[in-house]
């Protein structure tokens, strides 16, 4: 290899490595939690952006779950929460899913707080990858004090395409 190119590639690798080390040093807890399947931290981030220190292990943001985990969690009593619009929910949703359109957050929240305990495991979903509503709703529910909030990123399209049971009808 030409010496100049070899030096350039080594220096490029060093630049890359410095960036990675910097990123890991600023986000070590996040990455560790992600790989441990435990996306939580001692600092919760409510919707207002204010950092709240807690002595308990408070989930900082919704934990992503995949299809197999969703099936197991639902079988174990977790509650599916549909963040899509009500009319889309009516066309098809996960069995027994709670309709909680993100756009109607303020209207639906009182009923949700009344019916669903803060200790429930919540599995939020919307229209699949690329749909941010379930994640945004998850952040808000965490800020409300829900302790176990997860986001099923594959959402309704993946569930339906996997041939799993689908219910129809308005909430």
């Amino acid at each position, binding site marked *: 290899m030409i010496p100049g190119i070899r030096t350039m*590639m080594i220096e490029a690798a060093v*630049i*890359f490595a410095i*960036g*990675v080390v910097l990123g890991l040093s600023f986000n070590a807890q996040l990455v560790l939690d992600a790989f441990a399947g435990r996306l939580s931290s001692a600092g919760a981030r409510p919707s207002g952006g204010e950092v709240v220190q807690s002595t308990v292990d408070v989930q900082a943001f919704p934990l992503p779950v995949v299809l197999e985990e969703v099936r197991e969690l639902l079988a174990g009593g977790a509650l599916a929460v549909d963040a899509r619009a009500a009319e889309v929910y009516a066309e098809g949703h996960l069995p027994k899913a709670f309709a909680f359109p993100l756009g109607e957050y303020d209207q639906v929240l009182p009923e949700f707080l009344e019916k669903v305990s803060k200790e429930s495991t919540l599995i939020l979903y919307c229209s699949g990858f690329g749909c941010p509503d379930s994640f945004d709703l998850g952040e808000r529910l965490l800020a409300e004090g829900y302790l176990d909030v997860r986001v099923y990123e594959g959402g309704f399209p993946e569930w339906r395409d996997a041939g799993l049971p689908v219910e129809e009808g308005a909430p």
Partner: protein
Amino acid sequence: MSRATLYFYHFCRLTLGAVYLYAGVVKSADVVVFARDVANYQLLPYAWNYLTAATLPYVETVAALLLLCNRKVRPAALVLTSLTLVFMVALTTVLARGLDIDCGCFNPGQGHTSAGVALLRDAFLLIPAFVTLHLSGRMAKP
């Protein structure tokens, strides 16, 4: 190297550096949301989306700062050119799979830039990237 070429080289270097500095800083400001954007590509296991989101903006920022400071220009340009090519491959797979996602190129969670538009933008970004890479090599020669 003529004066015009020299100006063009510095223009490309600064443009590339400024674009990637902006991209790196805004993405590093909200790593969790950027991780969601990375996850939308459906290319990595979910924990790797967080690893990518946690490190990539810093790689961009370090390389961009070097370009702007006119230090280690060639290797920094190589890093950013390589990243641009990787992004283009990822965006091409998004188009091939028919996914309708935000590219997550700049402000994570803000707006929606389609894969096609982002691919076109990256193609344009390759011009200053290659020019910087090429001309910095010529400048390094005695």
